């Protein structure tokens, strides 16, 4: 445990323009340990990681690797010193095979100088076997692999470069529970082989299960580094946010009213089959299910992105045909999508422009945009959802994940929806913003909005929902009231296949 650190950073500082994102942060990694790095979005974790992997140069501070001071100019320099990174957005080439990706940039050569494909494939096979992934085909194109498989390819790639330090940036953000377990066992194995691992994650359970030490940074400054045995979850959360958070899932009681959305025997392809449910005013209906169970597809069908082929949708008791998102919006349906960067936001545009994007008719007279009205509404939204920003004319790409998500929610609240569909509303969002989003949901149901919430995080589903709808294989496999919703019951329904009796 007390081995000398392999890599050690002292007093690292970095500024972008006038913004001081890191202030004299200390950090080190020892061989054979998992060192968790914690902090809210925007705290400076990414910047720190990027310095270690050679993407950014520090303004100040000393970085020593294996006892000698280094000055990385590129990721190649970092790789040469045995530091490899597995990024949140995986950086593989989808059209190339697994083996080609693993050795990309340092292919072994034959004596004739050509690439030695036999060795490439054998070594890749070997690396994957070390990661307990005998099912991964070295000749498969990366685009055919699941996210979890791609991640193991990334890890194999790092090992192929003889990595001594592996930096993992939110490796479980887009994994389902079973893959998370598998990844954790891979991480433990690497640790036992003496690799030092920097583990960035928002999920406390993983950190307590994996980490040996934990470092918390807040607003670019080092808060504490401690052994995991010396702290509990509440300590870490209050270190991260600088205040204590009452409850992660503040379920507020709201009056549940008459049905607002009724779905009957909805069909659309094999991931939306014969789905029926009712959603009432002031209710939060959680949708649980594994990735690929058809949760998002159901949302896209209700939102008109992929219109239903069969079945009925009723809004306020009236039969409606939802043929496009525009139509869905006009009917009072809002959808906060799963992929914030791609589907939720126009990132190069400003907060103001994003907030009014779905409701341009409300901020224009005829065809002309009214600048004053638009600014007023955007300011109002920023205040109401406490979006942290310099000004409403700031581009949303500059905001942290949680604040970006609030901008998407603000955009849809501008439409005054009756039904708000939230798809993974708190994915990639830090604990502080997460609690805020949950309290926004509480406010909305009090005002009579009906919420359909899709989430992969079971505690969130159980904590926030009045009822839970469980999907598997494109069908509803369970509808469970709040009082009866236990992790076991929901979990069982998630993996169930609908039997003939329940299918009528």
């Amino acid at each position, binding site marked *: 445990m007390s081995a000398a650190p392999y890599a050690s950073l002292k007093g690292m500082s970095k500024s972008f323009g006038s913004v001081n994102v890191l202030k004299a942060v200390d950090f080190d990694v020892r061989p054979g340990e998992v060192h968790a790095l914690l902090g809210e979005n925007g705290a400076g974790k990414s910047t720190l990681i990027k310095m270690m992997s050679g993407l950014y140069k520090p303004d100040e501070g000393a970085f020593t690797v294996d006892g000698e001071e280094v000055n990385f100019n590129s990721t190649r320099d970092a790789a040469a010193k045995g530091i490899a990174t597995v990024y949140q957005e995986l950086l593989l080439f989808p059209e190339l095979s697994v083996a080609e990706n693993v050795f990309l940039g340092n292919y072994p050569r034959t004596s004739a100088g050509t690439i030695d494909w036999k060795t490439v494939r054998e070594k890749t096979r070997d690396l994957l076997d070390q990661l307990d992934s005998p099912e991964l085909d070295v000749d498969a194109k990366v685009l055919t692999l699941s996210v979890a498989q791609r991640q193991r390819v990334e890890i194999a790639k790092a090992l192929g470069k003889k990595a001594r330090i592996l930096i993992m940036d939110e490796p479980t953000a887009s994994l389902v529970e079973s893959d998370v377990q598998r990844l954790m066992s891979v991480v433990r194995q690497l640790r036992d082989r003496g690799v030092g691992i920097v583990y960035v994650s928002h999920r406390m359970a993983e950190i307590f299960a994996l980490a040996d030490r934990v470092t918390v940074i807040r607003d670019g400054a080092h808060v504490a580094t401690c052994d995991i045995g010396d702290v509990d979850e509440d300590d870490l959360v209050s270190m991260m946010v600088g205040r204590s958070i009452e409850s992660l899932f503040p379920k507020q009681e709201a009056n549940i009213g008459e049905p607002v959305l009724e779905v009957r025997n909805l069909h659309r392809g094999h991931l939306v089959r014969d789905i029926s449910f009712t959603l009432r005013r002031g209710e939060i209906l959680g949708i649980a299910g594994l990735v690929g169970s058809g949760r998002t597809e159901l949302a896209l069908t209700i939102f008109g992105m992929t219109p239903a082929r069969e079945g009925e949708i009723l809004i306020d008791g009236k039969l409606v045909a939802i043929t496009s998102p525009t139509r869905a919006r006009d009917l009072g349906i809002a959808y906060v*999508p799963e992929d914030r960067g*791609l*589907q939720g936001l126009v990132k190069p545009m400003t907060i103001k422009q994003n907030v009014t*994007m779905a409701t341009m008719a409300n901020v*224009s007279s005829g065809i*002309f945009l009214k600048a004053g009205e638009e600014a007023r509404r955007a300011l109002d939204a920023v205040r109401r959802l406490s979006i942290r920003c310099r000004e409403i004319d700031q*581009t949303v790409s500059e905001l942290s994940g949680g604040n970006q998500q609030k901008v998407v929610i603000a955009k849809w609240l501008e439409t005054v929806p009756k039904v708000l569909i939230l798809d993974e509303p708190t994915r990639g969002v830090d604990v502080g913003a997460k609690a805020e989003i949950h309290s926004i949901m509480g406010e909305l149901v009090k005002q009579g909005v009906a919420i359909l919430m899709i989430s992969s995080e079971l505690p969130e589903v159980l904590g926030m929902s009045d009822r839970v709808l469980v999907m598997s294989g494109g069908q509803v496999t369970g509808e469970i009231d709040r009082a009866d919703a236990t992790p076991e019951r929901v979990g069982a329904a998630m993996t169930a296949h609908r039997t003939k009796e329940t299918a009528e």
Partner: protein
Amino acid sequence: MKLKSLIRHETFLALMLVTALIVLAFQSDRFFTVSNLLNQGRLMTEVGLIAIAMTFVIATGGIDLSVGSILGLVAILTGVFWNNIGLPLPFAAIAAIFVGTMAGFGNGIIITRFGVPPLIATLATLALYRGLAEGISQARSVRGYPDWFYVLGQRDVLGVPTQLWILMAVAVIASVILAYTTWGRTVYAIGSNEVASRFSGLSVEKTKLALYTLSGFAASVAAVIFVSRVSTTRSDMGSGIELDAITAVVLGGTSIYGGRGTVLGTVIGLCLIQALKNGLSLAGVKGDGTIMLIGAVLILAILASNIFERSGTRN
């Protein structure tokens, strides 16, 4: 903040234009005269109309390569409708413009309904529409238009070339639309992130369809002005004009990836190119040299614009 809003591509471009005008004025005493400059305005109207429509198309991340062929087709049809079919000339022109607009609409349908990338769709119709024009013309040109028709392309109104008035009016209107309307906002949103635009309930398909139709319309109007200016109709008219228009748009700071660009930039880009072409030829530089210089100016302008972009943002 004030200062920052001035440091932008258009400002840099305007400075380049002023510099070019001054330098060229010293090279030839025939360059910086009212009559020469107005005449250059006359010459750049057709490209200008097309470039203004192209600014919208490129701002959505698209492109329209077929405009030159539409111009040729409409020119031929104007002549054929009037000369061979015997329609009165105003109706012949309107009918031809209608066909050209429909040609643009056809581009829009291919792109939005069938999901063909704009580059490929309009590359195909570039060949298709040009082929149609050549087939219809049978290599014969139409001449002998009535005298009143030349008011459009060869005469002045209040001392300024007629078509230059049209270009200026279109530039002002298009500029206002792109900058201040919900429609302009939609164009930028589509160009920046088409998926998110669709997820925000914007009419992505309708907007794109309208833009390609408008691009066809602009090329058609340019065709009639072209015919009036050169007094004759040939099927090869307007070939290559799409590249001149795209050059002006890109020089004007519109991002080829979409999401960024202004009509003002395009108009300055247009003036700069025209000034260089004319000024250099008056100064005795050969045509090849002029083209090379325009290429160099384009690269210089884009590099400078990238530097401004970077200094303004983090990362």
